[in-house]
C-alpha cells in the first residue's frame, strides 16, 4: 500500500504488467527516454529496455496500426497517444481495423491491445489538448472504452484492460493525473470492465458520470448536501459497453437523473444515458433527465474554458432543476 496519484498508479500497473508477461510492450511517442509527456511511463524503459518500452516517430495511425499487427502476432501492446486531440489521425485504424479484425477473421485473429489516451480539459492547455471525444469511441464497434476516475480504479482497470482478449481504449482524465492521492494496493489486482460503481449513495437524485466529472459531481453533491439534498453518484468506469442495469437501478431508486460529461453536447454519452433512462425507467422519472455537458463549440482556450467544462455549480443547478427547486 502506498499513497499515489493516478499517474503513479498507472505507472505501477504498467510496471506490473511488463514484469509479469513478456508479451506486454509499451509503445508511443516519448514514452521511453523521457517517460512520457505526463511522466506516466517514467522509468519503464530503464527497467525493461528499448525493445519493450518503445519510442515511436510522430505518427499516430502508425502507432495504432503497428500495435494491431503486433497484437495479432502474439504481443499485448499498450500503445499511448499523447492527447486525445492527436488520436483522430489514428481513428481510421481504430474503427476500420482494431475493432474489426476479430469479426473480419471470424475469431482467427484478435487484438488483445490497449490504447492509452490522456483526455479532457480543465488545465488551460493549448488547442487540441482538452478534447473529450469519448462518445465517438463508445460509438465504435469492437472496442471497449474504459475511463477511470481515481488512482485505485486506474490501476485495477488498466490491468484488466491489458488482460482483456479484446482491444480496450483506456482514457485517462488529464486533470486527475495529479489531482488526488489514494492508498493503492501494491500488488496486482483487476477491476471488472463493464461494471459501474456507486461512489456515493443518496435518495433525492442521481448523477451518472465518469472520469474527472466524478470529482466535479462529488463537489456538487457536497454543495447540495448543505441544502439537505442527498445525491447518489454512479461512476460508469466503462462507457462501452455501458452498465445499463446500474443506470436504470439508480433512476428507479431516486427518480431523478443528471447525466454529466464534458464532451460536446450533441450525441455525447449524456444523451445515451438519458435515452436509456427514459427507455427503461420512464415511469420512475419524476423529472426530465438533465444533461450537463460541454458545448457544441471548440473547447475554448484558458480564458473561457471554465465556462465550457462542467463544474460543481452547473451540476448542482441541474440537480436542483430535477427537484424543481
Amino acid at each position: 500500500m502506498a499513497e499515489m496519484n493516478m499517474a503513479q498508479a498507472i505507472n505501477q500497473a504498467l510496471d506490473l504488467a511488463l514484469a509479469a508477461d513478456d508479451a506486454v510492450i509499451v509503445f508511443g511517442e516519448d514514452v521511453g527516454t523521457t517517460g512520457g509527456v505526463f511522466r506516466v511511463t517514467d522509468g519503464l524503459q530503464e527497467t525493461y529496455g528499448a525493445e519493450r518500452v518503445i519510442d515511436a516517430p510522430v505518427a499516430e495511425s502508425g502507432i495504432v496500426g503497428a500495435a494491431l499487427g503486433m497484437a495479432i502476432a502474439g504481443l499485448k501492446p499498450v500503445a499511448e497517444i499523447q492527447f486525445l486531440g492527436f488520436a483522430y489521425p489514428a481513428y481510421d485504424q481504430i474503427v476500420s481495423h482494431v475493432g474489426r479484425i476479430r469479426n473480419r477473421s471470424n475469431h482467427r485473429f484478435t487484438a488483445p491491445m490497449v490504447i492509452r489516451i490522456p483526455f479532457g480539459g480543465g488545465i488551460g492547455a493549448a488547442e487540441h489538448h482538452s478534447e473529450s471525444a469519448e462518445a465517438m469511441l463508445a460509438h465504435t464497434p469492437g472496442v471497449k472504452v474504459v475511463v477511470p476516475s481515481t488512482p485505485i480504479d486506474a490501476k485495477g482497470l488498466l490491468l484488466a484492460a491489458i488482460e482483456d482478449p479484446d482491444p480496450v481504449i483506456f482514457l485517462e482524465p488529464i486533470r486527475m493525473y495529479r489531482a488526488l492521492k489514494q492508498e493503492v494496493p501494491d500488488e496486482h489486482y483487476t477491476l471488472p470492465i463493464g461494471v459501474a460503481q456507486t461512489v456515493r449513495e443518496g435518495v433525492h437524485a442521481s448523477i451518472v458520470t465518469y472520469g474527472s466529472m466524478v470529482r466535479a459531481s462529488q463537489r456538487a453533491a457536497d454543495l447540495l448536501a448543505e441544502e439537505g439534498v442527498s445525491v447518489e453518484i454512479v461512476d460508469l468506469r466503462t462507457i462501452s459497453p455501458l452498465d445499463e442495469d446500474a443506470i436504470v437501478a439508480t433512476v428507479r431508486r431516486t427518480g431523478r437523473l443528471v447525466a454529466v460529461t464534458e464532451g460536446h453536447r450533441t450525441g455525447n454519452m449524456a444523451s445515451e444515458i438519458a435515452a436509456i433512462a427514459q427507455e427503461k425507467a420512464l415511469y420512475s422519472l419524476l423529472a426530465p433527465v438533465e444533461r450537463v455537458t460541454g458545448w457544441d463549440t471548440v473547447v475554448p482556450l484558458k480564458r473561457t474554458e471554465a465556462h465550457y467544462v462542467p463544474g460543481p455549480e452547473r451540476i448542482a443547478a441541474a440537480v436542483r432543476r430535477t427537484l424543481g427547486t
Partner: protein
Amino acid sequence: MEPVRILSPDGSLVGDAPFDLEEARRLFAAMVTGRTYDHKATAMQKQGRLATYAPFEGQEACQIGSVAALRPDDWLVGTYRDAAAMWFQGYPWQNLFLGRMGDERGGEAPAGVNVTPPSITVGGHMIHAVGLGWAERLQGRDRVALTLFGDGATSEGDFHEAMNFAGVYATPTIFLCQNNGFAISMPRDRQTAAEHLADKAIGYGMPGIQVDGNDLMAIYSVTRDAVARARTGEGPTFIEALTFRIGPHTTTDDAGRYREDGEVEEWRTRDPIDRVRAYLRLNDAWDEAWEQETADAAGDEIEAAVAAAEALEPFGPTAMFDRMYAEPTSAMDRQRGMLRRDG
C-alpha cells in the same frame, strides 16, 4: 532505373533462372489455377452469385512469384485483388468465394495459415504487416511479413507511416507494390509526380527495386532476396512490380471510360502465364496434354471450392453479435435479444 527482368516475353532467359523446371511447372500451374478462379468469380458475379468482384487477371506473376519466396508460416497481408497470393499461401479458395458471397466466415484463415483477410480499405493494412513482422522478431522468431498493395495505395498517409516505421525499426517486412497502371480511373502518372514508385523507398532509408511484374522469375528472385534480408535482420525492402490489370477495376467498373483498348491489347502480349509457357516449351517441359491436365485440375479445384462454399449452411442472423468480442458484452447480449424479439 531498369526494371529487373529474367524472363523475356518470348520465353528466353536474360538472366539466371532462379528455380528449376519442375518448380517452373508448379508455379505455372498455380498461375493457371489463379486465373481459373478469377474467370470463375467474374462469371459468378455476372450471375448474381457473388457481390462486386475485383479481377486480377494479368497480375498472376506478382502474386504467385512473390508468395513462392515465402515460408509456409510467413505472414501475407494483401488486398481485395490478391486472391491468388492468399490461396498460394494457404488460404482456401472456398473462403475467398465465401467472402465475395457476403459471408463473414470467408475471412477465416485455417489454423497455421498466417494470411490476414483481404484489406478492403486502401492503405490501412501495410502497417499491420510492419507490426506483424516486428512482433515475430521481438518474440525471437524469424517469420517475415509480405504485404501487397497497389500504385494508388502509395498515396495514402498510412503507406508513408508503414514505410517509415519499417525503416526505423528495421522490421522484416517486404512491401510489394503491384503497380498495375491505375487506381480505378487514375493513371499512375497522376497518382504521384515521382518518376518511379520505387524511388519512394529512399525517403525511408530502404532499398527500392523496380521489377517486371509480369516476369515470374524476376518477381520470385527479388522477393527471395528481400525475404532473405528480412529474415536475417537486415530490414525491409520496397518492390515496385510493373504490371497491368487486364480487367476492369471491379465488376461494376467501366474501364473504357478511362483507358484505351489498345493499351489492354498491348499488355496481353506480355501475359505472365504465356511467358512461362513459352519458357517451358523452349525447354521441352511443356506439352498440350499437360496443359490440359493442369487446366482441368484447376477447373476441378475451383468448382469444388464453389460447391463447398455454396453448400455451407447459412449462419443465423444473430451470429454477428458473437463475432465482435471473445465473450459477447452486455451490449451484444441486449441487442441480440432485441433482434430476436423483432425478427
